[in-house]
């Protein structure tokens, strides 16, 4: 089994608010293997930021075990420095003085690392050439985020934390950032990512965890989640049912698919059938078509997007709570 570089067991985080103590993370487990890209998803307030901040060593925990590269991120002194030398963090707030140039920022930030990348290497890697000698105050939002990425990778980190790394990017900049993350991953960097863009998680992550109210709801590869937690949507055009699809035909199909279709939606002569068991639905549909004398045309069966899975898991959680 591949060794975990991030190990979190039974993590509990609380913070004080005007209404007393609030439990932001409530018994969370998380294990991320070397070289893995892991995306942590959750709605605002779900606890993902608190979780990541504890793993980064930027927040205290109430209880639980946390190790990154075998070191407790809450460590001080030599262990702290050792860990910081091997991780990179993209913070939401850039943290670079607006009065200096990108090159000056990179030169300074690389100074405390033992094996930093060269400035030229990072400029090339993150594609900063067009603005590396401009002051940070003159950079656009997207350019600043690229500089943030550059600053995070200049120490040649083994583990990289990306907190919403492409927020504010235009589509082409986002694609470039994805390429960079893919390149880092190919070089063996372990990456923990939080994002609001589910297609980003779908594109980049080996595994995805969805957290809600401080707990892990589901976890797995994007594909596994789509298969395990989402239905498939079957779409087919009904031909030969006369001038339109009459009510009898629609009622007949509903009867034929009773028990296997969660949802049936007609748009003109095309029907969309949402089902967790597409094999059974398909079998019944073809039998019904043969018996009714219609032809099934222009088939497709698609997996739901990660977004549909995410929304379903979250709505199930809320429904479960309201019932409970």
């Amino acid at each position: 089994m591949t060794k975990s570089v991030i190990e979190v067991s039974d993590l509990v985080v609380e913070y004080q608010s005007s209404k007393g103590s609030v439990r932001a993370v409530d018994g969370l487990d998380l294990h991320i293997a070397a070289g893995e890209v892991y995306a942590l998803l959750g709605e605002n307030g779900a606890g993902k930021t608190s979780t990541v901040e504890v793993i980064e060593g930027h927040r205290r925990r109430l209880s639980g075990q946390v190790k990154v590269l075998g070191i407790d991120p809450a460590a001080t002194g030599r262990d702290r420095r050792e860990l910081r030398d091997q991780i990179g963090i993209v913070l939401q707030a850039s943290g670079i003085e607006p009065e200096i140039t990108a090159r000056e920022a990179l030169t300074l930030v690389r100074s405390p690392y033992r094996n930093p990348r060269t400035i030229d290497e990072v400029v090339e890697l993150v594609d900063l050439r067009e603005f590396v000698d401009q002051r940070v105050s003159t950079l656009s939002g997207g350019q600043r985020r690229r500089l943030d990425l550059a600053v995070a990778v200049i120490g040649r980190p083994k583990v990289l934390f990306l907190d919403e790394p492409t927020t504010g990017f235009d589509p082409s900049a986002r694609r470039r950032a994805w390429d960079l993350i893919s390149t880092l991953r190919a070089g063996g960097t372990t990456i923990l990512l939080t994002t609001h863009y589910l297609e980003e998680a779908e594109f980049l992550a080996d595994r995805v965890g969805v957290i809600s109210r401080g707990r892990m709801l589901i976890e797995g590869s994007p594909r596994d989640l789509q298969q395990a937690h989402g239905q498939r949507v079957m779409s087919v055009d009904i031909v030969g049912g006369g001038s339109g699809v009459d009510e009898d035909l629609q009622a007949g199909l509903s009867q034929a698919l009773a028990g296997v279709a969660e949802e049936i939606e007609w748009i003109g002569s095309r029907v969309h059938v949402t089902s967790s068991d597409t094999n059974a639905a398909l079998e019944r549909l073809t039998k019904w078509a043969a018996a009714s004398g219609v032809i099934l045309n222009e088939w497709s069966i698609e997996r739901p997007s990660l977004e549909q899975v995410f929304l379903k898991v979250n709505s199930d959680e809320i429904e479960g709570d309201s019932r409970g």
Partner: protein
Amino acid sequence: MVDLQPWPRPLSLIVQQAAHQLRLFVRVPVAVFFTIALPFVVLLVINATSGERFFNDANGDWPVDAFVCVAISAFTAVSATFTNLANMVPIRREEGVLQRWRSTPLPVWVLVGGHVVSAVVISVLCTTFMLGVGVAFYGVSVPLMSIPAVVMTLLVATLSFAAMGMAVAAVVPTASAASGIANAIILPMALISNVFIPMEEPPVVVEVLANVFPLRPFVDALQAPLHPVDPAAAPHWDRLAVIAAWGAVGFIVAVRQFRWNVTPGGSTRRRRSASQQG
């Protein structure tokens, strides 16, 4: 696998951090204005209106323009350390700069040391400039035998006021409050410490208060070796002790209350709104 290199030398890191802070200082016009330009203009205005008057202290008469020049030189050192750090560190905290460094292997003491060393360097440069103006235009004399006492006084005072500046930076709630709080502390202190208004016979309350707080002891300790009639060769140790005591309190508060960020955590939305407010 890359072979690990040894850690960079702390001295080299401090020099880089201090050089970085100096570069930032010269690129922030408002910092340059308040640290050097404003005290210089105040010096010109006060001395343009003071005439040929003398200030009498226990050791003899000072021409008022020389007296005020040395006093404002001390005040400039305080602006460069106390006011500058109390203003700029909270701004950097709100910009996320401190949190950024917290994510790196830079030791905390190097980060703080870089700020302090740069403040001390700015302070020494500005004070030297002001004393130079005094020598050139206001009859200030700097006897060779007094230089060790001047240097020792500047060293103790700049480090102590830097520590006090870091303490204020640690406890102020926001960057926008920092400037007001720093000035609310230092300007009244300056008014009772012979900086802008030389007082030969101040009320007892003012005299007592001035001697309890650290600015008047600094002004006295810098003036003593530069006295036109009877310059002291040795540092004014009792005055330096008062300044150092305040510096020690500042150091303890700064270490205990130091904060890396303004947002104690919570959800993304809260952090965003907090950083936007900053």
